[in-house]
C-alpha cells in the first residue's frame, strides 16, 4: 500500500470539502493511503512570498520537515501548495548555503530540513504509483460522452525547472488522465494562460478579465465542463462566472469541476458522496452528472 502524507492547505478545508472528498475517496479506491499529520500550517504561497520570500521558504520547509519526521513523501491537491512546497524542496536540496540559512531559522522551532522527501502533485501519484493501466482498469463508469477542457493553471507546471511535473509548453499529463477515465479532452485557445486568480483582492477587475477570456475560450471550443487542478483556479472560473453575469451580463453556464471529482465519478463514486452542492459549485453541474451516471 503506497502511503503519502496529505497536505491540505488552507482553501480546501476552508470551503472546498468536495475537492477533499473526491481525492480521498478516489485515491482510497486506487490503493493509495493518505495520512494526516498534525501541526501543518499554511504552505506560504504567493501571497506570503510577496511579503517575504525567506519566511515563505522557512514555512514551506517546516511543513516538509513534518513529513520527513513522519517518514512520508508529501502529496498536495492545490497547485499553489505544490509550487510553494516543491520549490522550497528543490531550492534547499540544491543550495547548501540557502539550506543552512533556512535551517538556522527552523532551529528556533526545533526543526531541521534534511531534504530526503519528495513533494508530489496528486496527478503525479496517479501516473507514477497507480499507473495509467491500473487506472483504466479501475474505471467502472467511463465518462464516454463528456467533453472536458483541461485547465492546468500555472503553478502545477511553472517554474518547470524546479517543479518538473510536465513539459511547460506542451503538457500532456492532464489530457492523458482525462482520456484514461473515458472522457474526451478538448483543445481550446490559450490553454496554458493564467486564470488571474491571484490578482483577486488587489485588482478584482483584472482578475475577472482574465477569467472571462478563459471561460469564453473554453465555451467557444464546445467543452461540456472544465477540469481544474487548483482551488484558486476553481474559484476564479466558478465564482467568476457569477461575477461575469453580474458585471457583463454574460452567461456561459460552463460547469467547473476538479479533475478528482471527474475521476471519482468514473470510479463509480456518486456525486452525493462528494458534497457537490450549489454551495460548492456555483455553476450547476447537473448536466455533467447526468452525462456521467
Amino acid at each position, binding site marked *: 500500500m503506497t502511503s503519502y502524507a496529505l497536505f491540505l492547505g*488552507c*482553501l480546501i*478545508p*476552508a*470551503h472546498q*470539502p468536495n475537492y*477533499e*472528498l473526491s481525492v*480521498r475517496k478516489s485515491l482510497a479506491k486506487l490503493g493509495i493511503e493518505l495520512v*494526516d*499529520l*498534525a*501541526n*501543518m*500550517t*499554511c504552505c506560504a*504561497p*504567493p*501571497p*506570503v*512570498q*510577496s*511579503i*517575504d*520570500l*525567506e*519566511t515563505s*521558504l*522557512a*514555512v514551506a520547509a*517546516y511543513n516538509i520537515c*513534518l513529513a520527513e519526521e513522519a517518514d512520508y513523501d508529501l502529496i498536495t491537491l492545490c497547485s499553489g501548495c505544490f509550487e510553494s512546497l516543491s520549490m522550497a524542496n528543490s531550492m534547499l536540496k540544491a543550495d547548501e548555503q540557502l539550506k543552512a540559512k533556512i535551517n538556522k*531559522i*527552523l532551529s*528556533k*522551532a*526545533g*526543526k531541521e530540513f534534511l531534504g530526503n522527501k519528495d513533494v508530489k502533485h496528486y496527478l503525479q501519484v496517479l501516473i507514477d504509483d497507480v499507473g495509467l493501466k491500473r487506472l483504466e482498469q479501475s474505471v467502472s463508469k467511463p465518462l464516454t460522452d463528456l467533453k472536458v477542457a483541461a485547465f492546468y493553471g*500555472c*503553478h502545477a507546471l*511553472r*517554474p*518547470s525547472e524546479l517543479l518538473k511535473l510536465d513539459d*511547460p509548453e506542451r503538457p500532456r499529463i492532464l489530457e492523458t488522465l482525462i482520456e484514461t477515465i473515458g472522457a474526451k479532452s478538448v483543445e481550446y485557445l490559450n490553454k*496554458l*494562460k*493564467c486564470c*488571474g*486568480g*491571484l*490578482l483577486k*483582492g*488587489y*485588482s478584482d477587475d*483584472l482578475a475577472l*478579465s*482574465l477569467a472571462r*477570456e478563459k471561460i469564453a475560450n473554453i465555451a467557444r471550443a464546445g467543452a461540456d465542463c472544465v477540469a481544474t487542478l487548483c482551488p484558486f483556479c476553481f474559484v476564479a472560473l466558478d465564482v467568476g462566472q457569477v461575477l461575469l453575469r453580474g458585471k457583463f451580463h454574460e452567461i456561459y453556464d460552463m460547469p467547473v469541476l476538479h479533475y478528482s471529482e471527474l475521476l471519482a465519478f468514473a470510479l463509480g463514486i456518486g456525486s452525493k*458522496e462528494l*458534497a457537490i452542492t450549489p454551495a460548492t459549485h456555483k455553476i450547476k453541474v447537473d448536466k455533467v452528472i447526468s452525462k456521467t451516471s
Partner: protein
Amino acid sequence: MMYDEEEKTASLEFSEVVTRRLGGETIRRCYQCGTCASSCPVAKITERFNPREIIKLSLLGKKDEVLSGDAIWLCCSCYNCQERCPQKVEIADVIYALRNIAFEESHRPNIYSDFASALLNDGRIVKISKFYEDKRPALGLPPLQPTGVDMLRKILSATGFDRLQQKEKS
C-alpha cells in the same frame, strides 16, 4: 589581497540592493528583449503592468517609482515570463523581491497586510470556518488536525515577519 577595493558603505545602487535580495539575484542579466512582456497575460489587458518596464526602471535606479507604485502588485505569478526568458532572469521572483523590499519600506496593500495578520493569528492565510469544520464528520471527512500555530510563530519571529504587520501608510 592588497588590491581589493573597500566596500562602499555609502548607499548602494538600487539594482545592487535587488541582487542581494532572495529572489532578485538575477535582475542584472536582463537585456530588455521584451519576451516577458509579450508572454504576460496581465500586460496584455492593462498598460499598468509591464514586467520589462519594471525591471528597466529598477536597473535605472528608479526606486521610489517602482516601490511605491501600483505595478509590482499586479503580477499574477503565472511564471510564464520566467519560463521563457532567454537570459534566465527569474522575473517573477524578482517581482517578489521588489514586493518584499516595498513591504519592508511600509508600502503595504491592505490585502497583503490582512494575509500577514491571518498567518500570525491563525497559522493560515484563509481561516477555516467553524461551519465547515463542524460539518466534516457528517460529510465523511476525518477531523482536522491541529494547526501548528505556535511553531509557526517561532519561525515568523525568527525571520522578522511579525514586524511586518502594520497597515499601509497612505
